């Protein structure tokens, strides 16, 4: 989905709040949330793709105003409610206030038929796919052309895995793009490498 989470290349943000030896956690509850979602994954209540997608499904204003660990908390609670572990009413009673959850999910999809195997050096184009559910293709590479650098082992296909849709595991390819091709005349010169699932890629024509 083209959600608020898809931040790569978005303009208007200010300086990074950087400090040497920056902290990972600021409040004790953050550590608990971080452990609790790991606990739920370990118990098999949900998988990492479902977890990431439930964060992406947060209402955009909530997403932007929430801290990283509030997003984790919202995803954890949303999935526990959706999976029937607990009801929202119970959570709100216990919390003595409202408990904002994520928006509901749209359908997922399985692998693309006729996926191609690529090798290092191949020129590839990212398909111009628009899907309502989970995907791990950042919007800034949609339709763009790059060069395969290497291949990673097969992983569960996120577009399916986040939705309980049956699919084959598939490899990801590290694809190298030029920032100039991603944002012509509007970026610092760099090579941008993205790990791209096989279903998102097609072979680029020679003229591309």
């Amino acid at each position, binding site marked *: 989905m083209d959600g608020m*989470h*898809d*931040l*790569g*290349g*978005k*303009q208007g943000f*200010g*300086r*990074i*709040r*950087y*400090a040497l030896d*920056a*902290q*990972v*956690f600021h*409040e004790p*509850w953050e*550590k608990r949330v*971080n*452990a*609790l979602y*790991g*606990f*739920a994954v370990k118990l098999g209540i949900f998988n*990492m793709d479902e977890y990431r997608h439930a964060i992406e499904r947060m209402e955009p204003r*909530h997403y*932007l*105003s929430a*801290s*990283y660990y509030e997003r984790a*908390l919202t995803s*954890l609670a949303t999935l*526990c409610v959706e999976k029937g*572990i*607990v009801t929202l009413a119970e*959570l709100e009673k*216990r*919390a*003595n*206030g*409202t408990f*904002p959850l994520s928006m509901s999910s749209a359908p997922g999809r399985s692998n693309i038929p006729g996926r191609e195997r690529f090798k290092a050096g191949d020129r590839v184009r990212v398909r111009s796919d628009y899907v309502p559910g989970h995907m791990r*293709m*950042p919007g800034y590479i949609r339709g763009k052309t790059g060069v395969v650098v*290497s291949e*990673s082992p097969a*992983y569960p296909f996120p577009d399916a895995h986040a939705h309980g849709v049956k699919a084959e595991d598939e490899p*990801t390819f590290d694809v190298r793009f030029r*920032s100039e091709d*991603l*944002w012509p005349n509007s970026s*610092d010169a*760099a*090579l*941008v*490498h993205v*790990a*791209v699932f096989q279903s998102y890629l097609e072979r680029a024509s020679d003229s591309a």
Partner: protein
Amino acid sequence: MPDQTHSRPTVASVEKRTDAIQAALEERGLKAGEFIEQAEHLVEEKWIPENGARVVAKAWTDPAFKQRLLANGRDAVAELGLTMPPHHRHLVVLENAPKVQNVICCTLCSCTAFTIIGLPPDWYKDLEYRARVVRQSRTVLKEMGLDLPPEVEIRVWDTTADTRYMVLPVRPPHTEGWSEEQLAKIVTKDAMIGVARLQGT
């Protein structure tokens, strides 16, 4: 969200919401409290940047190890007793050079090889870093204190799948003859993310 036009019940604080979900799990016989204690130990003592620092120091002093590390990071770090979660199926080690600076990020969420380089620092998870580093890499690095000469090529790695990355920094020349233990002490999390270079490099 605060809403000025309608009166609504108050949103519970994040602490109260965390208490609520934890208590709900406990009541169903799921030992959340115990798991939180175990996780505390992992976060404080196991998933720490000292792991990655040992990997870097070994790569600097043992060329055969470095070769194995660059070929298959996951297997190579296992030689040092370091593990990764099952869903991190690949560790790609990115070697810096005087004229190459690799930097890692995750624009879609905030993924890292956390068992090796430690959990991501706050700024790595902030919207600003996620939005800007892929598009304004040189500007962002400069703002963060790393002012790279124009001849240094920047390579940004966006962690969009479950392959994980770590940067192998350049070894400072003044460390000639140092032991692995001494070398490991100077390697920082930020250098393994790629937003800093080590002194003298």
